């Protein structure tokens, strides 16, 4: 090969060759990681469902239905519905999109609320979204075991037990206290708290439609 060539065609061919080899390497890497990536994504949803729903023995991934842009999963045990989970997202976070999983009791009240993806400011907006179990140095030395279940988060946990029914104690539509509603918010992270509130309200509204759709389809069957 000529290292000092200035022939454009020769240079073009060499560059083409280099790119072709690189493309081959990238292509085989993509083929090799395709299944693990899909698996990792499925596992993330499955782990989230296991976190927010009570023990179930069906595959909620198969028992799922879309209402608007909210995806609902139904969890059953011994053929009886034990809960529902809504996978939803809003774009009104401080750093854009926030994704969440919200589970409901069979009676329609919120059971658990987790944020699965967000870009909120660490140490500020993230306080409204993250459930963090802090490990302490003293605890590690003493060999403390982490308690089971999800770590608490005051903002997310306040939605548990609420529903869209007329009996609910919260004014509808739900708002944070700063906007004249009933939901607590993190001082200095109002935008993040509003987004979290919007997620909950969106899921509750979609859940009502989802249940109506259920009843409707059963009537159709009869």
């Amino acid at each position, binding site marked *: *090969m*000529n*290292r*000092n*060539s*200035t022939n454009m065609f*020769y*240079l073009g061919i*060499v*560059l083409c060759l*280099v*790119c072709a080899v*690189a*493309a081959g*390497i*990238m292509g085989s*890497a*993509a083929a*090799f*990681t395709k299944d*693990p*990536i899909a*698996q*990792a994504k499925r596992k*993330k949803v499955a782990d989230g469902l296991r976190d927010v729903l009570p023990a179930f023995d069906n595959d909620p991934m198969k028992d799922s239905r879309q209402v608007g842009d909210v995806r609902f999963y139904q969890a059953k045990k011994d053929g009886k519905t034990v809960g529902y989970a809504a996978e939803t997202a809003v774009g009104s976070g401080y750093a854009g999109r926030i994704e969440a999983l919200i589970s409901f009791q069979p009676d329609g009240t919120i059971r658990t609320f987790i944020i699965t*993806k967000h870009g909120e*400011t*660490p*140490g*500020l907006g993230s306080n409204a979204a993250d459930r963090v179990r*802090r*490990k*302490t*140095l*003293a605890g*590690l030395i003493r060999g403390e075991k982490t308690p089971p279940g999800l770590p608490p988060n005051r903002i997310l946990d306040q939605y548990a037990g609420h529903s869209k029914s007329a009996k609910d104690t919260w004014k509808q539509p739900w708002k944070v206290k700063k906007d004249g509603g009933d939901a607590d918010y993190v001082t200095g992270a109002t935008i993040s708290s509003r987004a979290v509130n919007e997620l909950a309200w969106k899921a509750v509204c979609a859940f009502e439609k989802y249940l109506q759709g259920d009843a409707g389809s059963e009537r159709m069957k009869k």
Partner: protein
Amino acid sequence: MKLLKELLKGIWKENPVLVLSLGMCPSLATSSSALNGLGMGLATTFVLFCSNMVISLIRNLVPAKIRIPCYIVVIAAFVTVVDLLMQAYTEALYNALGIFIPLIVVNCIVLGRAEAFASKNGILASAMDGLGMGLGFTLALTVIGMIREFLAAGTLFQVQLSANWEYGFSVMGQAPGGFIVMGLVLAAMNVYNRRRAEKAGKTYEPPQGLDCRHCNICRLSETSYKKSQ
């Protein structure tokens, strides 16, 4: 022995972040916690190690005129592989580092070492240089990440050190804190090097183009200027 020197120089004497001041953007952005810094450092180390070896292998084949595009293609290919592997096997870290993994392609440490070292040296020396520079980058990012994480949240590698740390110094976890900590670490490094040179009876010469003449935190250039008078 020479190979070991190539490996060690990147970690301390020619540390890419703390001495050469290369790759500042990812260093500031991903050193918000010790784990993020470590992850970003190791991903960059892998890319540097592989790209240095391959570029050293093809250094006599590639026409001089198109060497830079060829190096970039090689680097980009390795970054894509790292990106896919991290997405598949370390999803949490992949989400935390986000856009900065693809941006390893334009990290000037990687192209800098390709052009300045790998294109002129053999494959073993280049591999060692890439590994050393990568480890130096990892070390700097992890140390800065540890300082920032401790100040912002009172934790190290997500383990809380004191029992009741309710309110952190949260600006340290964000961009301004990155600049502040980076500046202080660079200043400390310069003070250390100056003291060591003084003890050995020499005048410390700051690395070229990095004499912080306009910064008077450590009065480095002032004192060395007086000494030489």
